[in-house]
């Protein structure tokens, strides 16, 4: 296997995200694909539709604020550290953004339907609410063909392309994620039509990934691009690598709040940085190495279960006679005499 899907952030976005695409936006309150968000803004992609269940730290808020998005399907969006989705609020007020609301499990079920390749999925929530009333694009109530009762169904979400951040990936495109990995990355990513762009904290050898394949959430055949990108989820957290940068999220959020100020943030932290490494360098210059050091996680929680993915070789049956006993033999012989089987 000579595949090598590694490329730069710039190339991955230029090659695989097109104006007008529907994008699965990975992560949840942690593992937000921020480096990819910045690059999409840098390349001034337009008219994107996003699907996700919930997303924090204002990643999607600045993507909307930068004018890249025309439509969002979501259960929950904000920058929790300033308690609002300011740019999204403004874009909606100005009629520049269509918003389709649904519950978290509604969104997750929409992506599970996409993952399964079926057109819709029944769910128990959303009925009786204004989400159902205002979002017939995603939610409908139908008759359960088995019981005749009413049941809410959610339309399958199948993005054109998925963007996610993970702890590790290999050059083939196997994506390793563990612990809290967003709500729906495995479903949103696998349900995408063209495939997945992943940023990863570390690139490891395929042999290493294959030693623990239970942790692979996206297998290589589905992956379009692998970008080695330390701090790729900053200011959101990446389990085992860094915690949430509350102070930076608040700082960014105070820019999100004001229509006049947000472009200044984008100029400095997005357009003004060649890539994500430059963004992190700027961070260190402005807020000090201590800012990054503060995000160090408490480690020492390696699995204690002794797991061995061993297998059994059926070659051991070669030459082994059939097991039998007198009772079985007598029965089979009597049956054969009668011409039975």
């Amino acid at each position, binding site marked *: 296997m000579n595949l090598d899907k590694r490329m730069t952030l710039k190339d991955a976005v230029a090659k695989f995200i097109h104006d007008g695409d529907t994008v699965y936006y990975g992560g*949840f*309150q*942690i593992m937000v694909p921020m480096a990819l968000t910045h690059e999409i803004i840098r390349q001034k992609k337009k008219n994107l539709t996003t699907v996700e*269940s*919930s997303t*924090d730290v204002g990643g999607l808020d600045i993507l909307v604020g930068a004018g890249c998005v025309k439509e969002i399907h*979501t*259960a*929950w*969006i*904000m920058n*929790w550290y300033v308690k*609002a*989705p300011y740019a*999204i*609020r403004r874009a*909606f*007020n*100005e*009629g520049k953004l269509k*918003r389709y*609301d*649904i*519950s*978290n*499990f*509604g969104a*997750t079920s929409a992506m*599970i339907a996409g993952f399964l390749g079926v057109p819709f999925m029944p*769910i*128990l*929530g*959303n*009925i*009786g*609410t*204004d*989400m159902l009333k*205002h979002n017939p694009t995603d939610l409908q109530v139908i008759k359960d063909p088995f019981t005749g*009762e*009413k*049941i809410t169904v959610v339309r399958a979400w199948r993005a054109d392309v998925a963007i996610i951040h993970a702890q590790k990936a290999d050059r083939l495109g196997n994506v390793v994620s563990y*612990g*809290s*990995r*967003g*709500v*729906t990355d*495995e*479903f949103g990513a696998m349900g995408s039509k063209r495939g997945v762009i992943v940023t990863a904290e570390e690139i490891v050898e395929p042999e290493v990934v294959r030693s623990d394949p239970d942790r692979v959430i996206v297998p290589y055949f589905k992956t379009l691009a692998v970008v080695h990108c330390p701090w790729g989820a900053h200011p959101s*957290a990446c*389990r*085992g690598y860094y*915690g*949430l940068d*509350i102070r930076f999220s608040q700082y960014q959020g105070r820019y999100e709040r004001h229509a006049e100020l947000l472009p200044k943030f984008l100029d400095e932290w997005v357009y003004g940085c060649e890539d994500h490494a430059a963004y992190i360098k700027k961070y260190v210059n402005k807020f000090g190495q201590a800012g990054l050091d503060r995000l160090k*996680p*408490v480690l020492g*929680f390696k699995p204690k279960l002794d797991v061995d993915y061993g297998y059994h070789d059926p070659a051991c049956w070669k030459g082994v006679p059939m097991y039998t006993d007198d009772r079985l033999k007598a029965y089979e012989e009597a049956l054969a005499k009668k011409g039975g089987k």
Partner: protein
Amino acid sequence: MTAASNYKLTELMTIRCAKEIKDGEVVFVGVGLPIVVAAYAMATNAPNMIMFTEGGAIRATAPLALGITVDDPALFTGADQTFGMLATMAALQRGECDVAFIGGAQIDKFGNINSSGVGDWTKPSKFTYFAGSGGANDMATSGKRVLAIMPQDAKKFVEKVDYITTPGYLSGPGEREKLGMIGGGPDCVVSTMGVYRFDKKTKEMYLAEYFPGQSVDKIKASCAWNLKVSPKVVETTAPTEEEIKVLRGIDPTGFYLG
């Protein structure tokens, strides 16, 4: 057990709310204050509580650190299962969650919750978006009973919410049943002023307890409809020094409690 002399109303709200959780119950914990309440309940009156998080961790033990987000790594470290939201939400739909524990921005007299926004949604220029449902809708639809926690003022406690994100009793008795909801609906609301329950017949929220320093009149003034008051309304017991100490150990920087 001496009564604490100095505490914040958010702290009393948290401590009082935790007492609504019975030991051994499966509690589906939503974003925000419920995370602190659940950690406090596990440290005090409900050590055998089973904690389900929206991010998808299932825990028999209290988290090692305060969860800032619902999928905070701290909520996953040392969990009993971390299968993801699919597992915890599926348990809700199977009817296995005793308590759906949520916050919200606005609540009305039938316990309907709005976390989508205020204004008229059909006129985009006149609607101010909040974050959206998150998992609250799923939790309140299918949890056996709903426990809600939210700071109180007359803009938050309204006669009718601008947008129903999360169903309470909708427009009154029988509505949930008509729509086939498997959960029982709102049972208790704890605010920064008092404790509310719901009339079994009318499904309307009424005041059951008022916090020390608050009064029925003051609370009625912080409620946009003509709030009914239980004839047995009582003053909530003030927290003890010990309770405050435990709580401040859980949220040492005042991230949630101010």
